């Protein structure tokens, strides 16, 4: 059972992800350099947060053409587990490994604060170990407004592929609890094969008692359990 974290030029949450995966027993974690063509046998590949290629043109647009992405796509094709967080989610959408796109936030400003999200499905590795209805997880993005056309949204809902929605402290999903104007308040989705996951909130930033928030641990517990089997 092996985990790897991809490092693009401009990624800046890569070490945070390595540290949390190792703390949760997923180590030692491979650091996968964007210029290489080798996932070194990793079962779980994580695309971390950050500003790959400076987020220039569109977040994730350029990273998609890194050599390593071809291997990630093949890994996903074979049913291997892939998690994209924030910039990682943007890259997976640009690469077509996940449906939809991430647009500039409705308020035209970068937002970094805790938000509440509620799992919308139990049937994925990522959400399988979540006991609570509401999780407090930080977001930090400028292009996090999820967009998909009507037909795509229907397919997502029919396929039970929405992972999380933004909500208030009690778990109610509505406009005021939606920080960036995402369609259907979506904070994360998975693919039809249910092995590729993308989410804008940062679970790795809510996985340390010393920092006062461990709501994100359950996501890693679920993932690592699925990878171990």
């Amino acid at each position, binding site marked *: 059972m092996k985990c790897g974290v991809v490092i693009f030029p*401009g990624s800046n949450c890569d070490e945070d992800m390595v540290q949390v995966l190792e703390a949760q027993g997923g180590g030692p974690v491979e650091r996968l350099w964007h210029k290489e063509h080798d996932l070194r046998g990793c079962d779980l590949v994580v695309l971390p947060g950050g500003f790959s290629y400076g987020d220039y043109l569109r977040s994730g647009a350029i990273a998609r053409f890194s050599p390593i992405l071809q291997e990630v796509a093949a890994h996903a094709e074979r049913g291997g587990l892939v998690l994209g967080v924030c910039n990682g989610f943007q890259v997976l959408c640009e690469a077509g490994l996940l449906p939809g796109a991430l647009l500039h936030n409705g308020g035209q*400003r970068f937002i*970094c604060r805790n938000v509440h999200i509620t799992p919308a499905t139990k049937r994925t590795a990522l959400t399988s170990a979540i006991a609570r209805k509401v999780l407090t997880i930080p977001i930090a993005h400028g292009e996090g407004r999820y967009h998909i056309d009507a037909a795509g949204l229907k397919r997502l809902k029919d396929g039970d592929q929405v992972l999380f929605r933004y909500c208030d402290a009690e778990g109610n999903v509505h406009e005021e609890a939606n920080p960036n104007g995402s369609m259907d308040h979506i904070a994360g989705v998975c693919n039809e094969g249910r092995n590729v996951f993308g989410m804008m909130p940062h679970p790795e930033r809510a996985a340390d008692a010393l920092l006062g928030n461990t709501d994100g641990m359950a996501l890693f517990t679920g993932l690592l359990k699925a990878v171990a089997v």
Partner: protein
Amino acid sequence: MATTTIDPDTAPAGVETARKLGLLPEEFERIQVILGRTPNFNELSIYSAMWSEHCSYKNSIRLLKTLPRTGPKLLAEAGQENAGLVDIGDGWACAFKIESHNHPSAIEPYQGAATGVGGINRDIFTMGARPIAQLNSLRFGDIATEARSRWHMRGVVKGIGDYGNAFGVPVLGGEVYFDPCYTTNPLVNAMSVGIVRTDRVISATSHGAGNPVFIVGSATGKDGIHGASFASKDITESSMEDLPAVQVGDPFMEKLLLEASLELAGTDAIIGMQDMGAAGITCSTSEMSAKGGTGMDIHLDRVPTRQDGMRAWEILLSESQERMLVVVKKGREAEVKAIFDKWDLNCVEIGTVTEAAPMPGASAGKGGMLRYFMHGRVVATMPAESLVLGGGAPVYERAVKEPAYFAENRRFNGAEVPEPDDLRAVAYDLLASPNIASKRWVYEQYDTMVRTNNMSTNAPSDAGLVLLRDTGRALAVTVDCNGRYVHADPRKGTMIAVCEAARNIACSGGDPCGVTNCLNFGNPYDPEVYWQFSEAIAGMGEACRALGTPVTGGNVSFYNQTVNADSTVPVFPTPTIGMVGVLNDAGKRMGLGFRSKGELIYLLGRSTDDIACSEYLVRHHGIRRSPAPYFDLEEETRLHTMLLMLIRSGVLSAAHDVSDGGLWVTLVEMGLVNGLGFDIVTDS
């Protein structure tokens, strides 16, 4: 040096050209003595850049030297390295510094602030330290009435956010103040804090004749060379046309440069490294050479340029962003090149280190000669030492004169101020004052959580708390200054600024260990401004000595003022204090929020019936002339010691510094964290 060329830049230049470049006639004569001949235009523009206020500190260094600059924990004396360096235990050192980008931000707020963040972070990682926290101290005009101030604020905050967020270092603290005096001249002070193993520090030095000199990072363009361009002989409409009005920051390039520099710091393949700030190549080549006592031959035509046909002095003075100068050990070039190739960065050899040899026929400065070549021909040469602060750069004494307002302030009598009838309304109005209200709109545009080391995210504390993961320790960081107090009484106001920073660190459980300062003042040639400056430095020295926190370095920014038709009005004298403290046990940190019903509230320190300089006095009564508030340095130091003792004994559940808005605002802030109220019994 006989010159037969028709190149105007290497023909002898006169005192008139020197004056256009901002050099005084007596400075021109000094240069002639140093060189033993008349300087050419290239050489004059080099001296004008290196002897500018910004690089030479010529009107401030004499006073700065009176500050306490040594201490048991100091690993590098102030001014020696690019940033202050303090030993924080377990074989780790903390590099930290604060700098200003006020004038560029007044013209183009977004890029001015962004390039300020870029510059201060390079000062940290050029020493091999990884930046782990950023702070900023901002001042604008009255955003309620001034559209211009709103424009400044929106651009500055977005610029700091966009650059810092992409660069990936969390913002751990800061302050924002508003006063009409900053309307046309906002203050944008950026601070960065980094950590490095004590045995892995890179020094900004150069030695070893024959060692190759490299320029790494961005290409060089005609950025920031306005001064010299106006004075050049062949100034034309088109030459002015292609001068970028402003510099553009590239946080993506900075992140690559950071990672490449830290990989380089992991090897022992280099002699020294320095980032390129003001006066770019000129400053880095001369300062590193002077520090090592050696010379350099630099071939300017090998520097990768962004615009074609750049002249020697344009390359020498360019302030293009995201570039470093590296002196590599002979034979280790391939290893260094591989690192920069990995990160897709320029890494070009542009010269070599030369032996120290004094220049014949001149008052030979010690150390080596700088020789700058263009296509094999020497276009400028001078002793490195003659250019630098602490070397040949001039040092001036300025006149002081106590301003009339200082005495007038004393006539203020608090007792005469009528007590408002509706105190409740005043109290709520204070909470809405921009100087006191929540700064959420600002800091939520910054990534405050990247690197998962911010301990204050879910438990706010007076100072930002940075977890040092593998040591179980933490750093407390803060930036503080109340410009209104310093304007009222520069000496006492600056003491208060230093002590407020120390109080914020103590309230968070930290031991203050070092100070960096950003001295934002008006025109040093105005005796009343220089009186403010010298009084402020005196107050800072007194407070730092009392608290045992040496000044490890910083930045001076003069000419912060509003120029009207008939008068020039300086901004409030604003000596922003950046302070770092250490918590040996991260678990012993202290937050500022009430935690549970029934907790007892204590007020430590002496309370006096004193509303001088308060936000209430200025906002509600519109009285802008009053002395600085009550302050006693001796009481203050005892208060800090007691506070830390209480925190470490585990009897406290929260601690918060009483500052702007007084006790009322402090209690409200403590209640807001966990939605708790408070009952206060007064003796009246």
